[in-house]
């Protein structure tokens, strides 16, 4: 996720409203991935996602003078994306707006981790990046929706817990519970498949952060 830069955003918005319209491209660019993943978590269909993403940025542009700066720009953009996404869902009529919250956090499940000790010991590079991507996507797509949403925003798009809660319209406590379960389910599913693969990140094996 591109880091937010409130000063750049405020300056951009001021100049766009003063007539330098082309700056809107620069303003919205850091939010593109977040818009995409938020809408993907709601709509799943890539054609709908792209369509609604375009409607979202136009709406952001048309309402730019209403942004007050009391929320982060990205959060404001994502609330528009979420509204547009829910609007599309209603239009499609495939689900009700409130069905997002219909699946509760009370559902019992097995969140026991996969027990293995070998992941750290096997050299990396056992899997091609492409193959790895396919395995990860498949695992995430296989998650129940309320967990998939959280992973898309929190772990793929690296929003913080507050932003994830705001984007999905749920409490921060729910985000934490769902995040924990989602990661446990992913670990359980992926650890046995991925034990030959270690992410390349400096200092990874050198103890815990």
């Amino acid at each position, binding site marked *: 996720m591109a880091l937010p830069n409130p000063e750049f955003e405020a300056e951009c918005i001021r100049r766009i409203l003063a007539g330098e*319209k*082309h700056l*809107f*491209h620069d303003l*919205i*660019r850091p939010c*593109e*991935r977040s818009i*995409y*993943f938020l809408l993907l978590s709601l709509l799943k269909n*890539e054609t709908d996602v*792209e369509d609604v*993403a*375009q409607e979202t*940025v*136009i709406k952001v*542009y*048309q309402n730019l003078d209403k942004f007050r700066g009391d929320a982060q720009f990205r959060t404001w953009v994502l609330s528009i994306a979420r509204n547009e996404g829910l609007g599309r869902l209603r239009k499609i009529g495939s689900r009700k707006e409130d069905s997002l919250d219909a699946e509760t956090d009370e559902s019992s499940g097995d*969140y*026991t*981790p*996969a*027990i*293995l*000790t*070998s*992941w*750290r010991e096997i050299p990396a590079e056992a899997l091609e*990046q492409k193959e*790895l*991507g396919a395995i*990860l*996507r498949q695992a*995430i797509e296989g998650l129940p929706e309320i967990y998939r949403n959280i*992973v898309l925003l929190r*772990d*793929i798009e*690296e929003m913080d*817990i507050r932003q994830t809660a705001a984007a999905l319209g749920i409490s921060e406590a729910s985000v*934490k519970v769902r*995040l*924990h379960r989602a*990661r*446990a389910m*992913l*670990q359980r599913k*992926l*650890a046995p498949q*991925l*034990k030959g*693969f*270690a*992410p390349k*990140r400096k200092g*990874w094996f050198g103890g*815990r*952060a």
Partner: protein
Amino acid sequence: MRIECKHVWEYISAYIDGEVDASLRADIDRHLETCEICSAVLDSTRNVVILVADDRVFELPTGFSQRLHARIDRELEAPGG
């Protein structure tokens, strides 16, 4: 305080995010020093989190950004846009 493996698993996600308080973190760290299983669970869960966050694994569809900005251009050029 001595804690059980199950207790550690409950807090793995929060631990990775740095969201556990200092005393619980110390308990978990102490447990991890001697528990190979929990260490492996922690590392594999963290591996999953890191892999999932890798931009190369989840790329935007080809042309998504170009089409988005083309749409913005049409709006900017429209009368009153």
